[in-house]
């Protein structure tokens, strides 16, 4: 604990850097997955191709992607943008399927009656599809947020600062508290964000309050 206390400023700045990489990535992965999922659901024959295709991004090992992306994007290797783009891709690998399934779970009758009431496609999306799919969407977002926060640490191997730097440095100098604090804080961040998202869900979607039952 002494080590953690003495290095608290360093740990705090790494924690901030960690959030600076992961939060934008989580948000972008979520937002970008929605149109992809909707498009996949609209064009039925391509649904499986699109959903499985993005899912397979998960098979790409993270480390090489962090290095190959700058070649494709034309950025510097240690640019935070690379790391964020890579994290967004991994997040979408999980989120597109969740989102496609979530929108699929919206009962056809509800959509038909909304159309009958004169909703435009766009209006129906905001008024019917999104709220009805919100439960499973949130569940998907929570998985993405946990996995992203944990995945960020890998970029430390490349020299991008995050809580993962506590692993690489602790490993070189043999400082067990450094690695342990990195593991614990990463897990805590993931859990806190998960609790926040879950609280947000309860606040924004009171019909889910009675339990975690999501419409199937």
């Amino acid at each position, binding site marked *: 604990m002494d080590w953690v206390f003495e290095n608290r400023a360093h740990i705090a700045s790494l924690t901030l850097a960690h959030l600076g990489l992961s939060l934008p990535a989580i948000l972008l992965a979520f937002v970008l997955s929605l149109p992809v999922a909707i498009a996949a659901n609209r064009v039925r024959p391509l649904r499986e191709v699109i959903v499985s295709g993005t899912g397979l991004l998960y098979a790409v090992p993270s480390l090489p992607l962090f290095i190959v992306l700058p070649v494709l994007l034309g950025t510097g290797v240690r640019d935070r943008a690379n790391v964020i783009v890579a994290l967004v891709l991994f997040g979408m690998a999980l989120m597109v399927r969740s989102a496609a399934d979530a929108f699929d779970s919206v009962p056809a009758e509800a959509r038909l009656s909304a159309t009958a009431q004169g909703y435009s496609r766009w209006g129906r999306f905001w008024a019917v599809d999104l*709220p009805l799919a919100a439960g499973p969407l949130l569940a998907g977002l929570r998985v993405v947020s946990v996995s992203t926060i944990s995945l960020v640490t890998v970029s430390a191997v490349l020299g991008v600062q995050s809580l993962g730097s506590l692993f690489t440095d602790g490993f070189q*100098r043999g400082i067990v508290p450094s690695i342990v604090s990195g593991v614990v804080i990463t897990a805590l961040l993931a859990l806190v964000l998960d609790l926040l998202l879950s609280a947000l869900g309860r606040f924004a979607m009171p*019909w889910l309050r009675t339990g975690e039952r999501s419409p199937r």
Partner: protein
Amino acid sequence: MKPPPENRRTARRLRARMRLVPGLAAVGALALISSACGADSDPFESGGGETGTVVIGSQQYYSNTLIAEVYAQVLEDAGLTVQRDFEIGQREVYAAELENGNIDVFPEYAGSLLQYFDPESQARTAEEIRDGLEQALPEGLAALRESEATDQNAMVVTAEFAQEHGLTSIGDLADLDDLVVGSTPEFETRPYGPEGLREVYGVEVQLQTIDDSGGPLTVKALEDGDIDVAANIFTASPAIAAEDLVVLEDPESLVPPENVVPIVSEALDADARAALEEVSAALTQEELLELNTRSVDEQAAPEVIAGEWVEEQGLVG
């Protein structure tokens, strides 16, 4: 167990949807705030461009970061604004950023740096390397006076192993079969790697990669007999004294001397250069070993160890 009529449920959700919007906005705000904080604490993006700010880089190696921190404190004492861009990966990553002026100061190791910029170089002694560097450094970069301290890859064995096989120099390894050398993955491609060992000393080795810069895992592997020789423990490593290890002599200079040398941008002013050269003068082999030992034993942050050292050495104030 019939669900409530679809339209009733829908209506309930429609009302609830109104509350989704502020929620989403909150998530968005959170992400924006955090990315803004991230940008503040992030040294990479604003790099180099601002006038009056000196950007100091360091390798992803605790000892190098410690030296970089010493440079930073000395330059701050000289009145400069310093931006620390530490723990960058290998030379292959940061060399480009030195060349394009994103980084102004970097603690470097003379031998490997020369081999990086001039792979054909035959320089073996510290003087030859110094001359070679002056030729080979790209425009806009200068090598300041190097320190006496070297921190280089060495062939290291346990005292027990050395005694058992009568080893004092790398060449003595030639008599041994099935030698396993532990080192970083890139050792394979270095001039002093397996090929160099074969050509210069007639030693055949098999590489076991260990990616901890000669840290505890390498030492443990030596002691457990998983590897016979460690090629990633540096000569300034505290482990050599602490774990009773033997550095094999290198009479043919297979591994070029790696004196610690400040590499700086041509634009760096004379006062700053003088301050860095004072550091070089103070950084003897013993002092570097002492710094590294404190870093590994006390496990304090670089700024603490460096702060005490520059104080002791009278380099600030």
